[in-house]
């Protein structure tokens, strides 16, 4: 299978840097899969889970990512997101607490700006919980 260079960069670390054969990202209007020699493109992504297969092993690697975008140019793909975590690294208790906190904040009367912040943190918490739950079953 053809591969392409993939770099997943979060604001606090470089999550992955290497070859990749398939990449699925959470785009604004649903998931999108990127294969080798994709057209040059910029795709905006939302909070969700991203998965990819590295060239040597066929198993999917999952990452929980925050808002960001994917930049494709000359068979090189850069994923730039604010956060990226492996599902097994997620602390479920903390994620649940964050979700509760965000929900509580949403119920309170607040400005539009505060509403945006709490809605974003709620979305992040829910994605993290979802992925962490999946990981546990396996």
């Amino acid at each position, binding site marked *: 299978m053809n591969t392409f260079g993939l770099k997943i960069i979060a604001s606090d670390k470089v999550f992955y840097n290497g070859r990749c054969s398939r990449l699925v990202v959470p785009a604004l209007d649903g998931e999108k899969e990127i294969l080798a020699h994709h057209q040059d493109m*910029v795709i905006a992504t939302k909070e969700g889970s991203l998965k990819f297969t590295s060239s040597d092993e066929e198993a999917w690697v999952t990452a929980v990512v925050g808002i960001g975008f994917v930049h494709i140019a000359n068979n090189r793909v850069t994923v730039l997101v*604010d956060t990226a975590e492996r599902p097994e690294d997620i602390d479920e208790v903390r994620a649940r607490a964050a979700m509760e906190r965000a929900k509580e904040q949403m119920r309170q009367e607040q400005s539009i700006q505060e509403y945006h912040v709490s809605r974003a943190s709620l979305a992040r918490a829910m994605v993290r919980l979802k992925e962490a739950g999946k990981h546990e079953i396996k």
Partner: protein
Amino acid sequence: MASTREIQSRMKSIKDTMKITNAMYMISSTKLRKARKSLEETETYFYTLQTMMSRILRHLPELENEYFDIRKDKAPDERVRGIVVVTADKGLAGAYNHNVLKLAEQQMAGCARYKLFVVGELGRQYFAAKGVNISKHFNYTAQNPSLHRARVISETILERFKRGDLDEVYLIYTDMVSSISTEAKLLKLLPMKREEYVQKTGVFSDEIVMNPSPQAVLKNIIPDTVMGYVYGALVESFCSEQNARMMAMEAANKNATAMIHDLSIEYNRVRQALITQEITEVVAGAKAQKKKKQARKGALNLE
């Protein structure tokens, strides 16, 4: 000349102060190490973000976007300038805070209407004492810069910019030029300027497709970019603050050592002078006694 006791108590107080400055030096050096680490970790992200942003904007078709709105219809004296100032929570960091505040004052003097957003306790107190109205104070954000805090700050700014409360936003922070030199810097956050990103490289590359639409992509990226700048500035400032404090404390230690050295010399001189004086007095007294005795003996002999 001061008495020995005075000099001794002076030396003791200097030594006590030195203990504090020494401890502060140690604390800021460990904090600096931590801050440097987080700076290194984030550098890749922001560097890539900036290059990506420039690349995307280069390929961007001409379009109307609220973040590029330069508010042409507003007269210069009607424009409201938002100034985000990043200061420390504490003083004792040499010229660190003064440089930032000086730059902020320059900016405030340069425009008719402004709104201040202050990060850090020291800046808040400074402007409160001067009677300048602060629009919003982000509590204690100078310590431990985190993504969440950067997000809160950037959301506030973007929200007000979109509402039209602010027409342009500047960020004043301290940049770590190298490990020994820092510099207070002014960064324009909003409105975004296309020319700043478009580098005239002359390299032709194919059109990039924006998915789902250029507007949607920009809407997704720009808040993140602004947040990225704010976070980067917070981390840089924190790093610079610790660096400045470390250097200030090092200088204080050096000065204290020099003072103790000088004072101990003075103390020894005073002590020596005292001893010499005492000896002279004793010898003079003894001599006087001896003379008296001899005089008496001479008188007896004569008889």
